């Protein structure tokens, strides 16, 4: 069953086209990762999927009763608002105190429940955001670059935590990520985005795709792929010219 799917979704801001012709679907318990360069419309696509923005073209279909837990890229809590970690977790809705306690223990923030949200470190803050998103037991967990600003060690442990809680709660995960090596290890499905879907599939398929390598072009292999890709293109062009000449 598809939790959420899009059909021909596009977004225009003024005259600019940010996204076009996005067709994707997310199944139960699947981990889907969106990768793409800056300005490729990743965050916009997430905002369309969670319902924060209506697409200017196409439709988004959300399965009946599918709840979404969302971890935003950044959350600037104004210093004028007092907010303890415990009160933040209660914003998830009316849950048992024991549920909140268990979730806080699960993501290792139980000692911080009485602290102000604004006093947490980057990693603690991300775990508090994750805990709140998970408390509602969502069918789909959506994360927008959740590890931005964390150090390598914290990044690795944050992704391990997400994989583990996905197993426990049984939700699907959709995330935008810059941490390509992690993505390639833990995703079921990777979508490479650059205004449109360049290529998609399992991590092995995507990492071998010329479109993906052209966008990210790592190391010698990536550079070679990029060269080969361009060469193919020129060759095609030459063929066409030949045909015309003939």
């Amino acid at each position, binding site marked *: 069953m598809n939790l959420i799917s899009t059909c021909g979704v596009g977004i225009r801001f003024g005259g600019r086209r940010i996204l076009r012709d996005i067709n994707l679907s997310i199944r139960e318990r699947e981990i889907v990762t969106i990768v793409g360069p800056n300005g490729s419309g990743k965050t916009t696509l997430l*905002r369309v999927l*969670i*319902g*924060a923005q209506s697409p200017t073209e196409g439709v988004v279909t959300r399965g009946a009763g599918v709840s*979404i*837990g*969302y971890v*935003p890229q950044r*959350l600037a*809590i*104004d210093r*004028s*608002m*007092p*907010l*303890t970690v415990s*009160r933040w977790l209660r*914003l998830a*809705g009316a849950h048992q105190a024991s549920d909140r306690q268990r979730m806080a223990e699960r993501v290792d923030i139980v000692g911080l429940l009485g602290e*102000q949200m604004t006093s947490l470190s980057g990693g603690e803050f991300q775990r508090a955001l994750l805990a709140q998103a998970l408390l*509602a037991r969502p069918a789909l967990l*959506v994360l927008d670059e959740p590890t931005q600003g964390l150090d390598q060690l914290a990044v690795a442990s944050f992704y391990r935590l997400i994989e583990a809680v996905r197993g426990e709660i049984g939700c699907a995960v959709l995330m935008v990520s810059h941490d390509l090596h992690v993505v390639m290890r833990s995703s079921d499905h990777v979508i490479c985005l650059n205004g449109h879907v360049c290529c998609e599939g399992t991590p092995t398929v995507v990492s071998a795709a010329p479109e993906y390598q052209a966008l990210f072009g790592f190391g010698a292999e990536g550079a070679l792929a990029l060269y080969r890709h361009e060469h193919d293109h020129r060759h095609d062009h030459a063929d066409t010219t030949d045909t015309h000449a003939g």
Partner: protein
Amino acid sequence: MTIVMTTQTQQTPMLDDFLIRAALAGIGLALAAGPLGCFVVWRRMAYFGDATAHAAILGVALSLAFSLSLFVGVLVAALAMSLGVLALAGRLYTMDTLLGVAAHGALALGLVAVSFLPGGRVDLMAYLFGDILAVSQLDIAVIWIGAVVVLILLRLRWQALLLVTLSTDLAAARGYDARREQLILTLALAVLVAVAIKIVGALLITAMLIIPAAAARSMSRTPESMAVIAAIVGLCSIISGLSASFYWNTPTGPTMIVAAIILFVLASLWSVVNRGR
């Protein structure tokens, strides 16, 4: 002798009467202004509150010209102003610029409009700075109904309003509509302005919203405690301001705001001292 006694017994209750009426009116305002003021502070809507309040003078002209009740005239003007600004914001001008145009435009237009009204000059001081000592029993009823409406709106939408204030995307993922919650706050603000104009006047309404909430910030750990403490600070400002203005014969509305400022300064000092420890 009997006559003298009657006059005396009648005078004392009358004296109490207008003070008690003023206190009742002020308490109603403070209870609603505290929690609503917290949202004004959290969402940085101070200037928005100012514009809504200044539109009240246009509302005064409206209600005098069409013989409407003051409450209705001010409510209509305040709502029209805030909805207009919300609709136009972000297109060509920022909210800040639009509010600057709207706030002073409404105030100036209102003052000019009032001067055109027949039947001599209206005493504008009462509308600009309030006249709490002149509130009638009907005024008190209107103020309390308005305050209760504001509190019920906030109570019903509390969770959604907090989420929208923290992040509109987070609220959207949860199924809340940011625009609708913004409209609810706008409506609550317009109602509060309409009931507050009699008490503190158009120029000082924002002060009753912001100062108690700001004073409460340093003493609170959760949004709820800040809302409750803001209401209490507002209450103390009203009562102490009222007594002070009675003893020193100072204008009542401004005296209540001065009392609130004193509480704000004390709260700030208290938090500085506590942090030092």
